[in-house]
């Protein structure tokens, strides 16, 4: 990228989270397992302007720990930008000067959307573990209500990484007529046994925290230790061995401290602890349980009688699938499986395997190849959709 281009890139500026509430009883929101819930609120943010034809809307789907706050900041003083600010904004991959970008917090989440921490109107207390099991398809069905509410008949694109990629794929299967194109990054049609294993260890950390109290902790101390441990485990899986080594090596946090001490701390340890502590401030332990469960249970193959080819038989979107060479949580082979199923069905698909040491986290970090390919893909899909 030239300097001129990067200089043009800007920020969406100060943004505000909005809320949409639907499915008021008795018109409950019906979940995949048949249980019902209502009312349901989704937190969402939008950036850019919807054009007259309503043909430039892009729905961004977030990963496990994400939120509706994908870009910009909440006030001029706020230093924390949205989770995908690197890629959303004027002149960026999701160019808010061309596209109307929407991001909503998932159902079951804890950043403004209805989830286990929300008040159950039937009991007047937080749902806790009474919250029904939520699937990726349920998250998508809830988002569909929001897109309808915004008056959008067809999305130019659905896009996301990791669990966001799962939602993007699910969108194209659940609502084929509503999606022009799909960008699925570092994702899979189903999580590997290894991935489920790591999620389970994270959940066990929460379950074993005495403060978890079967999910009833909203009026007392929260299970900080368990949730931060779960986050620490998660962080290990998001990084590659090489990236971790380059970032921390065997360096000690406090270089003056003697190396022999049992309490002396490696830099990588303090990084993980910091990530854990920071996470507890903004995330609900029960949401962590529900969302990781949704990821574990996502299985497009199983949904279609054991055939991934059958899953993509009736989709009409065009796809951009991207994986990262050092991602071992959602390895390239998972993306290749999606690509194979799509092309066997004669669907239009682009696929690249980006060479990087950044592991699963790569989609959240600066990457020129990722940026230019999203940009070019959206440009040609937008052009095609306008015909």
């Amino acid at each position, binding site marked *: 990228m030239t300097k001129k281009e990067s200089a043009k890139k800007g920020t969406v500026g100060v943004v505000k989270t909005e809320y949409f509430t639907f499915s008021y009883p008795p018109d409950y929101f019906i979940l995949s397992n048949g249980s019902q819930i209502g009312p349901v609120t989704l937190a969402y943010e939008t950036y850019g302007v919807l054009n007259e034809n309503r043909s430039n809307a892009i729905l961004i789907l977030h990963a496990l720990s994400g939120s509706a706050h994908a870009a910009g900041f909440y006030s001029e003083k706020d230093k924390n930008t949205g989770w995908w600010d690197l890629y959303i904004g004027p002149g960026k991959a999701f160019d808010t000067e061309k596209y109307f970008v929407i991001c909503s917090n998932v159902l079951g989440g804890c950043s403004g959307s209805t989830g286990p921490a929300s008040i159950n109107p039937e009991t007047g207390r937080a749902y806790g573990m009474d919250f029904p099991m939520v699937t990726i398809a349920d998250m998508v069905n809830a988002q569909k209500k929001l897109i309808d509410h915004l008056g959008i008949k067809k999305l130019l694109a659905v896009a996301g990484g990791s669990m966001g990629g799962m939602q993007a794929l699910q969108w194209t299967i659940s609502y084929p007529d509503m999606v022009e194109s799909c960008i699925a990054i570092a994702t899979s049609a189903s999580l590997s046994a290894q991935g489920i294993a790591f999620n389970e260890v994270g959940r066990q950390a929460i379950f074993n925290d005495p403060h978890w109290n079967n999910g009833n902790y909203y009026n007392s101390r929260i299970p900080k230790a368990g949730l931060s441990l779960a986050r620490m485990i998660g962080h290990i899986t998001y990084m590659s061995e090489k990236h971790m080594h380059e970032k921390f090596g065997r360096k000690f946090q406090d270089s003056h401290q003697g190396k022999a001490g049992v309490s002396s701390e490696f830099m990588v340890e303090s990084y993980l602890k910091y990530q854990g502590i920071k996470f507890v401030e903004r995330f609900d332990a029960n949401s962590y349980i529900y969302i990781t469960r949704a990821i574990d249970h996502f299985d497009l193959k199983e949904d279609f009688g054991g055939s991934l080819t059958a899953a993509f038989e009736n989709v009409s979107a065009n796809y951009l699938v991207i994986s990262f060479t050092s991602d071992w949580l959602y390895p390239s082979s998972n993306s290749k499986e999606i690509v194979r199923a799509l092309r*066997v069905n004669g669907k239009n*698909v682009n696929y*690249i395997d980006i060479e990087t040491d950044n592991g699963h986290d790569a989609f959240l970090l600066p990457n020129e190849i990722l940026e230019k390919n999203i940009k070019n893909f959206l440009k040609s899909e937008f052009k095609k959709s306008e015909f």
Partner: protein
Amino acid sequence: MEEYIGYDLVVEEIPERSRVLDLGCGDGTLLFLLQENKGVNGCGVEISEEGVSRCLEKGVYSYQADIDEGLSDYRDNSFDYVILNQTIQNTKRPDLVLKEVLRIGKKVIVSFPNFGYYRIRLFLLFKGRMPVSKLLPYEWYNSPNIHLLTIKDMKRMEKEFSFKILQQQHFSLVGEGKNKIFNFIKKIVCGDPHTNKSKSCKVRIMPNLFAQYGFFVITSKKDTNQ
């Protein structure tokens, strides 16, 4: 490296609105031309990330993969045309690739640098080492062309691989070099390069000796029997 070799002949050959798979599609220029001129529904396979990225720039669909690693999941006759343009000599197992493309494509275009070209023969004869020229611009040790063949080799495969040759348009690239004798020979076998508007000129006289590139349109015999 010479680029865009034989593109004019491929575009000429493929009918409007065909379903096309381009194996080793490079930067996607050929598919782009086919999309623009023939309205084809195309898809490319390319081994490099840069290649796929450049396809994306053009609005051409392609995916990053090694064609040696399999085309087996495509259904029989999925494509009207499968293109192997300057690709077959780069594959590890041309035999397996050829079998697969004959299965998945109703027709297959195979074009490759002709190792039987007289100047390559002369190079080997007089210099006694592996030919390095404009046509094959690599040293033996760094060449991606790991399975070189001649036009005659391709014809000899017809029986064993049970395909039928539908068309042959062996060609050389238009343009003159320094050597007057070679230019004269080219003029005789191709016609006057100045009157030839396209980039490739068809060689009709003894192509295995005088054509720089082989160009075949083939189809599986199993199909024609159906």
